[in-house]
């Protein structure tokens, strides 16, 4: 990592660093290491946005490394009393916390926290910027399946504009040698994507053609101030992974979703629970990946 004390994003991380994290995660996943590397340390989960799975995943990971986990909830804390993010971060660090895991609705929030404190900071999702541990667990899930991501084609479908998962995955997958195609409604595809070395299309069938993996993004209804498409039914028709589309995929193609799934919107219930789906495995792998991340920054 460019600054090994923190994990703020995937962009700019060298391939070796990513591979080290994946293989360490693999050791945890397979039970090759028991490691209680964080005994006596405090890991603070500071979540400004509601999140159950990411927060729980970090909590389980930290606890199984022996750390004490402090869940700093925002409602009822000083954040709702107008305290600045910098102030809150300094106060949490002053409790003797070793690692702050932060989720915030604004892009750049984790970097701001990292600039303000002396302890380690892990970005658990900042606005529309990055969600590095999610990208690592997605990459690990594919890597575990395939052995290598080199030359694999991964389609990422949905609200690219608002998705930190899409950004982190783009950087991670490309660094590991995969080819990435973004697909979504034109209103959800931000400008400048082409210069990031990603194929961009609004036609789902084009994106799915030859794909080895399909990552369906969650439609964040709560994040859309304006409707970016006319209706859920239309979205499902044009950009949803329907049973028919899933059936037409390459025989060994897999389906991922960062969760929680809007069943019947991004993908049909049958696809979510079907043979191709790695959705539950992603959750399982998430703990191992986050153990590797917490260990790496500690």
């Amino acid at each position, binding site marked *: 990592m460019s600054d090994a004390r923190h994990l703020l994003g995937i*962009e700019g991380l060298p391939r070796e660093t990513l591979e080290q994290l994946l293989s360490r995660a693999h050791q945890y996943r397979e039970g090759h290491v028991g490691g209680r590397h964080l005994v006596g340390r405090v890991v603070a989960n500071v979540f400004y946005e509601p999140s159950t799975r990411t927060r729980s995943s970090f909590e389980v990971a930290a606890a199984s490394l022996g750390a004490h986990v402090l869940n700093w909830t925002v409602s009822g804390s000083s954040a709702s009393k107008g305290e*600045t*993010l*910098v*102030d809150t971060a300094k106060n949490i660090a002053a409790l003797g916390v070793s690692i702050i895991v932060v989720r*915030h609705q*604004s*892009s*750049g*929030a984790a*970097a*701001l926290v990292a600039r303000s404190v002396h302890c380690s900071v892990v970005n658990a999702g*900042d*606005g*529309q*910027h*990055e969600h590095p541990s999610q990208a690592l667990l997605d990459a690990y899930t594919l890597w575990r399946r395939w052995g290598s991501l080199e030359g694999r084609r991964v389609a990422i479908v949905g609200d690219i504009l608002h998705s*930190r998962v899409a*950004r982190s995955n783009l950087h991670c997958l490309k660094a590991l040698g995969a080819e990435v195609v973004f697909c979504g409604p034109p209103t959800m595809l*931000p*400008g*400048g*994507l082409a*210069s*990031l070395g990603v194929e961009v299309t609004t036609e789902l069938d084009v994106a799915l053609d030859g794909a080895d993996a399909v990552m369906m993004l969650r439609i964040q209804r709560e994040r859309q*101030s*304006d409707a970016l498409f006319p209706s859920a039914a239309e979205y499902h028709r044009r950009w949803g992974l329907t049973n028919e589309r899933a059936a037409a995929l390459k025989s060994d193609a897999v389906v991922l979703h960062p969760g929680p799934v809007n069943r019947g919107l991004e993908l049909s219930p049958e696809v979510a629970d079907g043979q191709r789906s790695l959705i539950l495995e992603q959750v399982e792998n998430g703990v191992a990946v986050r153990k590797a991340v917490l260990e790496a920054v500690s």
Partner: protein
Amino acid sequence: MRLVLRGGRLIDPTARRDAPGEVLIVDGEVAAVGAKVDAAGAQVIAVDGAWVVPGFVDLHSVVRDERDVDAALRGGFTTVVAVPGTEPLQTDRLTLLEASPLTQHLAGDELGEVADDAVCLSQGFKPLARSGVLRRALQYSESRGKLIMVHAEDPSLAGNGVIGAGLTATRLGLPSVPVAAEAAVIARDLLILEETGGRLHFAHVTTERAVELIAAAKKRGLQVSADVTPHHLTLDTRAAEGYSLTARVWPPLRSETDVAALRAGLRDGTIDALACDHVRVGVLDREHPFEACAPGCEAFEQALPAVAKCALEPSRLVEVLSSAPARLLGLRTGLTPGLAAAITVVDPNAWSIRGSVIGARHTFPAGVVT
């Protein structure tokens, strides 16, 4: 009190003057300008080759307290128009002028009452979403000839954006503002101006499209003018890298191409003037993530260095900082006997300010004055 500025290059675009010479100031008024003035009994300031020019005039900034006054003086400004809606500061160290709010509470709905001493009407940083209001304002102002200063922004296009759309915004995941948020409003306003008459001024334009639209309107003879800020002349969206708050300004920063177009526009006269948008943001308003921070930057001292990057002829450089904004406001300034002294001395090697004379006061350090 008599004061002489000696040994400078006098540049005054209004008087078409660009020659070595001296200026005599008596009791706060310019008394004589020429190759040699009567320095008997006067304090003499030797400026050794620096440019002696009409004091800089800023069309819109926020001056909250003496720190802002200091910054304005350090930047060479002798006259500043306060953005309406800000609490006016009382000071005699700087000429602070008032802009009348174009609409009541700048809400964009009903015409604001025009203060008699207002030098212009301004909408500050607030958009005018309703075209009909601008039309009425232009019609009404036509009889008085006051400049109408607008902020070109379509709020429904700007949304919650904080930076110009493009690669940097996409990579950093920052909500962005399309070019059309500015350009569409400028196009609309120019069409209205064509029907109504009046003098319309676009504050802080940021895009190449805006420059093109204004150039075309000028060519057709419309009474339109525009200004650009120091930051939009020197920074593009890449300044937001690492979420640097240098880039947290409003209107948002744009692309490299836009910066080049703004510089060219300032050179060829499409953009009439520089204006600062100096806004000093409190420390607490900076302890948030990029998009949640209050926008603004301390721009007074960036003005001269920014204009110096635009490859302007010396007289054009002085014009955009001084004579052009003064003319837009209908102020009489310059190195002309009989006018109140408002003079700035520029070091053209370091692009820094040596000092200024405002009325009976001056800001030159003690050792320089003999």
